[in-house]
């Protein structure tokens, strides 16, 4: 260990990159890759990181916090309320069941009742980080399983506050230990009587909600107006940091605080922007977290009492799996969904680290008990991805319902089949027309003022830069059928359309082009649905001019259709022709040449005489001759 921060960072990043890419190559989840990377660089294999492992774990827990903030963002308060039954029902059943069974198990192992109780609390909690990461990676959030897992994890995140509150009550009233814990956690409220603690907790929740409405959103608006993208990222971090700090200060779970903050901001127009800013950050931090878990597996403890560890490990997973499966049964999950739920939540979660070390500080647990439980926690986390693989590869195919059953999303903001990028003069007309036909497109726009106004008018509009894949993903591009690109900036249009075509080839792109030259470029890139903004309008104007000059409206109407058809064919024909050197200086001249060429062609082809049905001179002549012949022959 050199102690250099840069060296540590290199070790972490290299470990992550190598192990995760190997895991991905083998079709395993990235979580497993991170965990293995942690084991490898940890103190017992390569020894790159030693005692700092625990510090890193503490820091990396911030990844969990960011994740919960992002989860919160996905949940609008209304939907959260709709989910209350499954959160309280499934979560309550799971936590209660797991606690009772594991309590009995540890009592059987001759543990003290207090120790057994603390451990059973830890055992009841699953790892939000691991489960959600896996669910996200596999895109199962919208399934019954995804919903159930989410409800249970959410309940656990809430209940952990009460657990942390209850543990001091079990403490052996050792004054020295109590002071220790005070020093260690540094909470504001430890010394206060219970009533004040509760009050402070309620106050801080109210504070978060109030700040969200009256402080954060106005701040984001102001920041958005500056147009500096990294300021929005900074704001996102500031929000999460502040909330976590506040929650830690009053002794609540920072993860829960972040979740709450997310919920408060979920109905704001900056939802997708915040999401896309924090998403990469979250993933890296979570990766760090998994590496830290891997590194913290204490192989010395395992080597000392392998059988005990193995026995408890097996028992814990069996107990959790049994309770989860029964919970799934009670809530009538289909077998495949239930198995997914059972195996993906059957580990002990990251909160166990917190609960166990807290209990250790309060002298409830001794060093050996804590070491054993920490190792088991890390091991259950590491085993989860492996169990999931076994479940998916060997068990689920046997029961024949490999496909996850989709059901309409009921708690996450509906992602639409149509995404409309750019809600300016062009896009808004499109959007309004779609809306009047019951098609609500998800709208992305970069003008924060316009976003404000539109949201007030009840449109689902999000602020953000659509050239960023994360934002498009947050807006549901993966499920979208059609993306309408209605922005008036050709380079940006190219960037978006290229990106979508490459990453989401199933999405049909309808693209606004400013003029022929844009259209040429888009056509040559293989896009088909191109709409020159000026074509219809200019023809409509020309049509009205001719009508005022005495031409018949119906004829003009048909000529306009003819012209559009003719012009589209010629556009496609000309796009294929080499355009030569597109130097900017020559562009104007080139355009003029092009126009001249088109006009000449129009003139030669005579499109205005195109429409020759009925009453054309030719028919007239033929009929005249025929009738003359007839009459002369009869005469």
């Amino acid at each position, binding site marked *: 260990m050199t102690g250099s921060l840069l060296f540590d960072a290199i070790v972490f990043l290299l470990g992550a990159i190598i192990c995760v890419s190997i895991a991905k190559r083998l079709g395993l989840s990235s979580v497993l890759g991170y965990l293995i990377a942690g084991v490898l660089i940890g103190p017992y294999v390569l020894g790159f990181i030693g005692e700092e492992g625990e510090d890193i774990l503490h820091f990396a827990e911030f990844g969990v916090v960011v994740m919960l903030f992002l989860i919160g963002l996905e949940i609008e308060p209304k939907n959260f309320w709709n989910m209350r039954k499954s959160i309280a029902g499934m979560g309550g059943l799971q936590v209660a069941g797991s606690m009772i069974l594991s309590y009995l198990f540890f009592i059987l192992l001759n543990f003290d009742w207090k120790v057994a109780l603390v451990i059973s609390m830890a055992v009841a909690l699953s790892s939000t980080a691991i489960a959600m990461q896996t669910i996200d990676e596999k895109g199962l959030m919208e399934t019954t399983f995804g919903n159930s897992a989410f409800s249970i994890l959410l309940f656990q995140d809430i209940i952990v506050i009460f657990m942390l509150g209850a543990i001091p009550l079990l403490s052996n009233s050792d004054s020295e230990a109590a002071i220790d814990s005070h020093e260690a956690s540094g909470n504001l409220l430890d010394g206060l009587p219970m009533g004040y603690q509760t009050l402070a907790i309620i106050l801080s929740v109210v504070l978060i909600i109030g700040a969200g409405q009256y402080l954060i959103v106005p701040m984001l608006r102001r920041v958005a107006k500056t147009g500096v993208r990294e300021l929005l990222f900074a704001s996102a971090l500031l929000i999460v940091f502040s909330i976590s700090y506040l929650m830690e200060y009053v002794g609540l779970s920072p993860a829960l605080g972040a979740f709450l903050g997310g919920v408060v901001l979920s109905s704001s127009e900056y939802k997708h922007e915040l999401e896309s800013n924090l998403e990469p950050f979250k993933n890296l931090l979570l990766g760090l977290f998994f590496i830290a878990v891997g590194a913290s597996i204490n192989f010395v403890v395992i080597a000392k009492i392998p059988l005990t560890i193995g026995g408890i490990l097996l028992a814990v997973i069996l107990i959790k799996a049994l309770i989860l499966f029964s919970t799934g049964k009670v809530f009538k999950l289909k077998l495949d969904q239930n198995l997914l739920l059972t195996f993906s939540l059957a580990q002990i979660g990251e909160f166990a680290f917190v609960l166990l070390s807290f209990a250790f500080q309060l002298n409830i647990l001794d060093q050996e008990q804590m070491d054993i439980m920490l190792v088991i926690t890390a091991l259950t986390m590491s085993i989860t991805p492996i169990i999931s693989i076994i479940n998916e590869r060997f068990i689920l195919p046997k029961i024949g319902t490999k496909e996850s059953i989709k059901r309409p999303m009921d708690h996450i903001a509906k992602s639409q089949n149509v995404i409309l990028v750019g809600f300016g003069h062009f896009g808004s007309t499109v959007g309004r027309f779609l809306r009047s036909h019951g098609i609500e497109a998800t709208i992305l726009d970069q003008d924060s003022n316009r976003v404000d106004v539109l949201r007030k008018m009840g449109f689902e509009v999000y602020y953000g830069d659509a050239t960023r894949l994360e934002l498009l993903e947050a807006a549901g591009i993966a499920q979208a059928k059609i993306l309408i690109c209605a922005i008036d900036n050709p380079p940006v249009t190219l960037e978006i359309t290229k990106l979508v075509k490459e990453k989401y080839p199933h999405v049909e792109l309808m693209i606004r082009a400013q003029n022929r030259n844009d259209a040429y470029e888009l056509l040559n890139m293989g896009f088909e649905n191109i709409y020159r903004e000026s074509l219809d309008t200019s023809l409509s104007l020309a049509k009205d001019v001719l009508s005022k000059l005495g031409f*018949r*409206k*119906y004829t003009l*109407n048909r000529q306009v259709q003819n012209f559009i058809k003719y012009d589209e064919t010629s556009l496609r024909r000309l796009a294929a022709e080499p355009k030569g050197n597109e130097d900017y200086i020559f562009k104007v001249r080139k355009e003029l040449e092009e126009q001249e060429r088109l006009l000449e062609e129009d003139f030669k082809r005579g499109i205005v005489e195109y429409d020759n*049905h*009925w*009453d054309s001179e030719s028919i007239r002549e033929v*009929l005249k001759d025929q*009738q*003359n012949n007839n009459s002369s022959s009869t005469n």
Partner: protein
Amino acid sequence: MKKVLVLFAHPKFEKSRANNVLVNYIKDKEGVTFHDLYEEYPDFHIDVPFEKKLLAEHDVIIWHHPMYWYSCPPLLKQWIDMVLEFNWAYGPEGKALSSKICLNTITTGGNKELYCTQGTNSYTITEFLRPFEQTANLCLMHYQKPFTVMGTYKLSDEDLKIYGENYSMLIDQLQSKEAIVTT
């Protein structure tokens, strides 16, 4: 004096010599509303309430159009489909057009000899107009014999002038008629 509504349907009016003459004779007459459908609805988007109001205000309805494939141009068919609504123009409650006078003014390129049992077209104009006649009947209107201008390609300017005067006279008659004798 009865009010006359001329529902004129000609996709290529600017090219039609015969119809230009006919229309010039009648479009500015007192009590005549000349309603050029292709000019009014170039996109075939017919304003039905407006059309119903127009019909209600008039006593004589003339479908004035060239003979296209033994029928009317598509916009007039569209007009019939859209405007003559059930329980307004026909059906148990459909009395809106009842006892109005109705007829077709027809121009054809082919001459009269083509429109008979011996001619290329096998049937007479009146026979080809049966769908219009029955439409009028169903709407409780009194259907009159059509005013026809045939062999338009061959007609001289003088001939056309006579047709124009006749058309104008027909409208005078229709306007002054007290009652229509139903057969």
